[in-house]
């Protein structure tokens, strides 16, 4: 039987970047944040508290290898080597398995700190929508966590759920958000919470003749609604920022904005690197306080 070639619609774009305005050789304190998530891994290197370079790639089957590969890619072409970095902090789901990290800090603390850096000190609520969990975090003007709630038990409302839908509808995950907004009117949200059941529901909507963008609209709106219920339990205070991969899905973000009736802070940076930025900043603070 001929094997059908299966396209991987869930695959998102990996990236790396170097700040052309900084020479690491001139820096006093070099720190790195290594955020090994269940789905993606980000490495950020900061020179004296300024973003120098980063990489953002998929997590492989082993956390230590993902951390090493991510670090190699982040440092590619910079001439910088791991041993020259003064302090490295691991965070995320695989934080205890980062071979070159000096310390591990939870991703909750790192995302709040990173959001404070990326979006400014007025941020009071951070929604981190990751690959396999979703966290609603309240923080103060220093990016310190005041309280948080998370869902890490259920795929509904996480990036994994969105990947399942991208695969089902055979739409590249990076196109899902924009396509979902291209509907003449908003359809009722998918009614099943469970991703497994939502998948069957979507299949039956497709059989009924719904176009793919309408099904995506129904799913993005269900996901937004699910996340709103989590946010409401922790309480949403201005300013509000979203980090993590789903922050790039405009279909979910726009619907969240509408349902919450709140503006969402903007950044020029990749919202997926917030955790790694926070980790690198913690590294700098620890060095300055002599607590290494």
């Amino acid at each position, binding site marked *: 039987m001929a094997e059908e070639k299966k396209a991987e619609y869930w695959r998102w774009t990996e990236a790396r970047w170097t700040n052309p305005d900084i020479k690491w050789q001139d820096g006093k304190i070099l720190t790195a944040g290594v955020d090994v998530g269940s789905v993606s891994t980000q490495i950020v290197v900061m020179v004296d508290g300024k973003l120098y370079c980063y990489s953002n790639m998929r997590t492989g089957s082993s956390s230590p290898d993902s951390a090493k590969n991510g670090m190699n890619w982040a440092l590619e072409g910079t001439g910088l080597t791991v041993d020259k970095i003064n302090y490295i902090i691991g965070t995320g789901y695989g934080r205890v398995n980062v071979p070159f990290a000096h310390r591990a800090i939870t991703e909750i603390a790192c995302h709040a700190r990173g959001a404070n850096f990326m979006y400014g000190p007025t941020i009071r609520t951070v929604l981190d929508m990751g690959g396999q969990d979703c966290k609603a975090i309240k923080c103060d003007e220093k990016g310190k966590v005041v309280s948080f709630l998370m869902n890490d038990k259920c795929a509904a409302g996480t990036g994994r759920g969105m990947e399942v839908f991208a695969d089902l509808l055979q739409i590249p995950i990076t196109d899902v958000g924009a396509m979902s907004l291209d509907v003449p009117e908003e359809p009722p949200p998918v009614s099943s919470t469970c*991703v*497994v059941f939502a998948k069957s529901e979507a299949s039956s909507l497709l059989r009924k003749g719904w176009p793919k963008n309408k099904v995506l609209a129904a799913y993005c709106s269900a996901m937004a609604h699910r996340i709103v219920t989590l946010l409401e339990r922790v309480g949403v205070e201005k300013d509000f920022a979203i980090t993590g991969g789903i922050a790039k899905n405009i279909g979910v973000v726009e619907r969240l904005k509408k349902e919450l009736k709140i503006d969402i802070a903007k950044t020029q940076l990749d919202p997926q690197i917030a955790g790694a930025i926070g980790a690198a900043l913690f590294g700098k603070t620890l060095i300055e306080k002599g607590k290494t």
Partner: protein
Amino acid sequence: MITAGIDMGAKNIKVIILEDGTVKGKALTPAGLDAKVALETAYGAALKDAKVTKADIKHITATGSGREFVDFANDNVSDVTSAARGAVHFYPNAKTVVDVGAEEGRGIRCDKNGKVMDFAVNEKCAAGAGAFTEAMARALELKLEELGPLSLKSTKAVPMNAQCAVFAESEVVSLVHAKTPKADISKAIHDAIADRIISMVRKVGFEDDIVLIGGVAKNVGFVAAMKRGLNKDIKIPTDPEFVSALGAALEAADKVKAGGK
């Protein structure tokens, strides 16, 4: 007197033709893409199996999540009612009925007449339903029927951390990559779903006799995990997936006796 019970489930349609308390015929058809065609097929097959015609049926009672869909039924009863009624027919001492279908799980407390006293349902999450084992069989590249028997060959306990079927699928794939024997993974899968079901049924309480029905009761791995988890005996009727349809047919017979059409 001949009556029919039709259980319109999420995955399969089950039909029982009952004559004076005895099953005359039965049929099971996957609900598939066109439920109307599947329903006609299932009903026709059950009539044929019982060697009767539509005209012989005095009353049809529908049940199951799609019970409203059975437009030719005289009436319908809830899944919980039919499950308890059918279970007590087989085991008159049944006090706790656990019904696990493709997309739902139920725990029911009932009296000796099969009357429902209390119940708990999970219809929101695949982790406590047959859909969980189906997804796991796919992740293990096994047929669903192979999963249960294989789990009985397990020699080592492996932990499953994920509750969600979607996350558990990734976990199973990682376990396979780590060369964990499929038998051990399979046992962990059944323990996981049994845990979910048991914690749901605990809301109504377990009291003997405990009767397990629904399609998932045919899975020997799940039954073993339930027995392990509860440390109690569990009774399982011969065709556990037909118990609700039978319960509906019994309800239909009551209606006729009570003088209704």
